[in-house]
């Protein structure tokens, strides 16, 4: 994008993980030809009418580091110049003097009393209703603790035949949308602000900009073109307020496009350490589970508290468990901020509970699929949080995914961990085959609100106005389908307007697999509003009750008597003011919830709907090199009604491909707070070569009574359970236990050598962590 007179930005970033800023010298930078402005963090408090702190959970994040830096790569100064090159040249000449402070890089250590404090004091943001209870924080790095207390977990452990303890970890990772974050802001002389942003949350960005500059909401316009991928990485505000500030200070349009390296310092997927202690009976029934999770949210909380809460909520797994105790901690460290990532923390917790499910099943000699099916939550069962499951096809997902990879033939073909040679003359091989399965159940974010406007024209064309962001998931098509269905119009008669906060009404977020359900309902209501107005007008003209009328193909007619009709052009001329007029409908949808007890976390209705999924895989493991080849994947997702079956299958296949990349390759590696691999040359993403030729998407349909035409959501469902399914298949193939991601050849080899070693020293392998047989 380009605007006349546009300036470009380069950011000066911290080289220290934690330090006081002693000085930021911009003199040499300012003398570079083409440089128009150098703004430093320490300058920010002196700017009138500016609140320089942002963040969706806590107002903990300064637009530029003000008094101290909290991670390597944190922006300290912004250089604004006539060209990208001049800005970059200037940025290289800014001299920063640091006074180093002790830094902390491990969330488990940072959570302890006496650890170096990343923040001395932070204030809550109060931007979202589910985070409205966050307090002011002082003297701790734990920025949120989620608690769930169900039954009596200690009594449960006493009653259990066995108690197993295992620890699991997931590394920090990158969203790596191929389009980076990009912003273009302009400020009009009268103060009105317009910004084009790669954001999944235009409504939230508008509020944040209004707050930052003390502007009324209608003086801030956020526009969002199609995104080149989001996956949670473009949520809430990132650099929008900074770029808007630079546009205000220079009076010129200002553009910032992040480099790939900068992406790694902007937002990440949470690394997590999860400890599970689980009491089971001899028949495999889980009776008690204690969960402790440490989420490494980096130097700024971003949406970490919600990740810790929503996944702590689901961390005991989709099983009937009488006694549950969960502590889920969101912890500051001196690393780049971690936030939303497709699945919102579920991949990390599903990795833990589904790996442990297999470990327990193997220890007890129970088939892993049977182990799950014996205690899977079914329709009407109460989830650990006290909410009854509604519209949940989890069992069907498990059964159908297993069937698709011939689970039943597993033991015959895989006895003694040897792949059955297909031909008797085949040479002896290092390749071992195995099958694995895993499942997950996510609750949709709650509460949240979507609004939509639908306008109908006299020529029977209609436009849908929503702030739902199209980033490849197909939301434009789906929203058009809902409007077309209600208005009885063909799909090609519907336009969907891109998000533009001057025009499109409020929406909480485009994330969390919520848009089809929430915005779908809002669009349905808005279209219904239009339909009612049209039918009422037609009822007068045709002298019948509107209840007897129908709308189809641009006509309104009496049900069962199609000849008694009025066309939309005629009706508009007669009743709505003429040929060019519009009928406008509005819809707003906010699901209701029941209060959550703050001490126990229990609630009669703590979410609006659930999306279950299961993944089954067959792998081939080279026991000499540790290489894991995923031969085939079957991924099942319960989507409610499949509004657009092809798009549902695409979401399942796409999430599976991404999950495979995360499971086998992806990890942001740190050394002393520095990202070691901030480049796609060193941070590997799966290519067409890595993705198995056979990914079978299975669309399970359990319609939800509250969904638009029964639909739920599907964007995240297939991302939860692939990694544990692969690790479970590796265990099936070569009999070793993996507890850390990603599943690299080194890790697999290491696990094989531990398993082969004499039994004296098996530390580090959760496989063998002392079950207490009573």
């Amino acid at each position: 994008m380009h605007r006349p007179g546009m300036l470009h930005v380069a950011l000066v970033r911290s080289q220290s993980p934690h330090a006081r800023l002693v000085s930021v010298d911009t003199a040499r930078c300012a003398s570079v030809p083409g440089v128009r402005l150098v703004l430093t963090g320490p300058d920010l408090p002196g700017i009138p009418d500016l609140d320089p702190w942002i963040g969706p959970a806590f107002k903990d994040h300064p637009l530029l580091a003000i008094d101290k830096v909290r991670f390597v790569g944190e922006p300290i100064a912004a250089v604004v110049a006539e060209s990208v090159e001049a800005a970059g040249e200037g940025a290289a000449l800014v001299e920063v003097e640091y006074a180093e402070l002790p830094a902390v890089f491990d969330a488990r250590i940072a959570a302890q009393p006496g650890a170096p404090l990343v923040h001395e004091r932070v204030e809550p943001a109060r931007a979202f209703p589910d985070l409205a209870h966050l307090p002011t924080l002082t003297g701790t790095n734990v920025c949120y603790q989620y608690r769930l207390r169900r039954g009596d977990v200690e009594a449960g452990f006493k009653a259990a035949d066995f108690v197993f303890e295992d620890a699991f970890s997931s590394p920090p990772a990158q969203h790596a949308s191929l389009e980076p974050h990009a912003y273009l802001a302009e400020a009009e002389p009268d103060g009105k602000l317009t910004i084009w942003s790669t954001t999944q949350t235009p409504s939230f960005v508008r509020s944040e900009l209004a707050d930052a500059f003390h502007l009324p909401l209608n003086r801030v316009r956020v526009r969002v073109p199609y995104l080149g991928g989001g996956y949670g990485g473009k949520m809430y505000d990132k650099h929008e307020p900074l770029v808007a500030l630079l546009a205000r200070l220079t009076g010129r349009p200002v553009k910032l496009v992040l480099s790939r390296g900068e992406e790694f310092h902007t937002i990440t997927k949470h690394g997590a350490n999860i400890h599970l202690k689980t009491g089971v009976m001899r028949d495999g029934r889980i009776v008690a589970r204690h969960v402790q999770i440490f989420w490494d949210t980096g130097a700024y909380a971003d949406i970490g508290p919600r990740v810790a809460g929503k996944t702590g909520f689901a961390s005991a797994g989709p099983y009937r468990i009488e006694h549950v105790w969960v502590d889920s901690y969101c912890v500051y460290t001196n690393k780049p901020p971690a936030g939303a990532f497709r699945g919102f923390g579920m991949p990390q917790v599903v990795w833990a509970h589904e790996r442990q499910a297999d470990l327990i099943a193997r220890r007890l000699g129970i088939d892993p699929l049977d182990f799950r099916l014996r205690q899977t939550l079914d329709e009407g069962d109460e989830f650990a949080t006290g909410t009854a499951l509604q519209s949940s096809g989890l069992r069907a997902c498990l059964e159908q995914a297993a069937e698709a990879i011939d689970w039943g033939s597993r033991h015959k073909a895989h006895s003694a961990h040897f792949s059955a040679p297909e031909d008797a003359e085949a040479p002896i091989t290092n390749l071992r085959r195995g099958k694995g399965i895993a499942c997950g159940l996510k609750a949709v974010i709650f509460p949240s609100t979507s609004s939509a406007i639908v306008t109908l024209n006299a020529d029977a064309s209609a436009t849908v106005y929503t702030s739902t962001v199209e980033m490849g998931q197909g939301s434009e098509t789906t929203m058009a389908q809902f409007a077309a269905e209600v208005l009885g119009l063909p799909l090609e008669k519907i336009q969907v307007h891109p998000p533009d906060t001057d025009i499109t009404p409020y929406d909480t977020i485009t994330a969390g697999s919520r848009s089809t359900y929430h915005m779908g309902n809002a669009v349905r209501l808005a279209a219904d509003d239009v339909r009612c107005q049209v039918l009422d007008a037609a009822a007068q003209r045709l002298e019948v009750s509107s209840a007897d009328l129908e709308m189809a193909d641009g006509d309104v007619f009496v049900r069962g008597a199609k000849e008694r009709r009025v066309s939309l052009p005629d009706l508009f001329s007669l009743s709505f003011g003429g040929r060019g007029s519009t009928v406008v409908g509005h819809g707003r949808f906010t699901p209701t919830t029941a209060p959550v007890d703050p001490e126990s976390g229990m609630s009669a209705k703590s979410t609006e709907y659930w999306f279950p999924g299961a993944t089954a895989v067959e792998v081939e493991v080279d026991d000499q090199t540790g290489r894991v080849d995923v031969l085939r994947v079957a991924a099942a997702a319960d989507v409610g009604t499949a509004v657009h079956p092809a798009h549902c299958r695409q979401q399942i296949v796409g999430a599976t491909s991404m999950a495979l990349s995360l499971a086998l390759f992806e990890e942001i590696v740190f050394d002393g707070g520095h990202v070691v691999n901030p480049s796609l040359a060193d941070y590997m993403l799966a290519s067409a070569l890595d993705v198995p030729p056979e990914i079978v998407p299975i669309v399970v349909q359990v319609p939800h009574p509250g969904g638009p035409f029964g639909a739920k959501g599907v964007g995240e469902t297939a991302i939860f359970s692939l990694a544990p399914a692969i690790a479970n298949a590796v265990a099936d193939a070569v009999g070793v236990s993996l507890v850390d991601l990603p599943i690299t050849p080194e890790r697999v080899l290491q696990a094989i050598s531990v398993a082969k070693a004499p039994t004296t020293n098996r530390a580090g392998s959760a496989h063998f962590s002392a079950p207490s047989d009573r």
Partner: protein
Amino acid sequence: MRPVQLTINGEPRAIEVAETALLLEVLREQCGLFSVREGCGVGQCGTCTVLLDGRPVSSCLLLAALQDGRSVETLEGLGRPELGELDPIQAVFLEHEAFQCGYCTPGFILSVKALLAERPDPTPEEAREYLAGNLCRCGAYPEILKATAAASARLRGVQGSECAL
């Protein structure tokens, strides 16, 4: 600045380029060819793929000043947009919905074009190998590979007539 002669999408162009300017930057900023997109800047993701004398290259790795006399093809050169006509490869990508967000799509289409020019009937393995230099973070690989096979069939089956659709 240095003058270079390039044939861009079939049209000879004389352009003054900065000695340090990347081909990617010149195509976007001086030629307005915005289908050429930077994804990683280090030649790993393939979103900036263009055809240089018919071969797929990462335009983020090449200095424009060193490409004097060469021919560059971008997505804008495919089909006949002024008549609303798509290249057959574009058409099969649409039919197979071989994309989600679409950011990587221009690079993939050009790589498929180069693949099918080199090997009109690639095996699935050859196609996977050839396209491994293009990344799709949405994970539409299975659909992209299906579209590649369909494009191969279409180009071999109905040569000229289908191209002029």
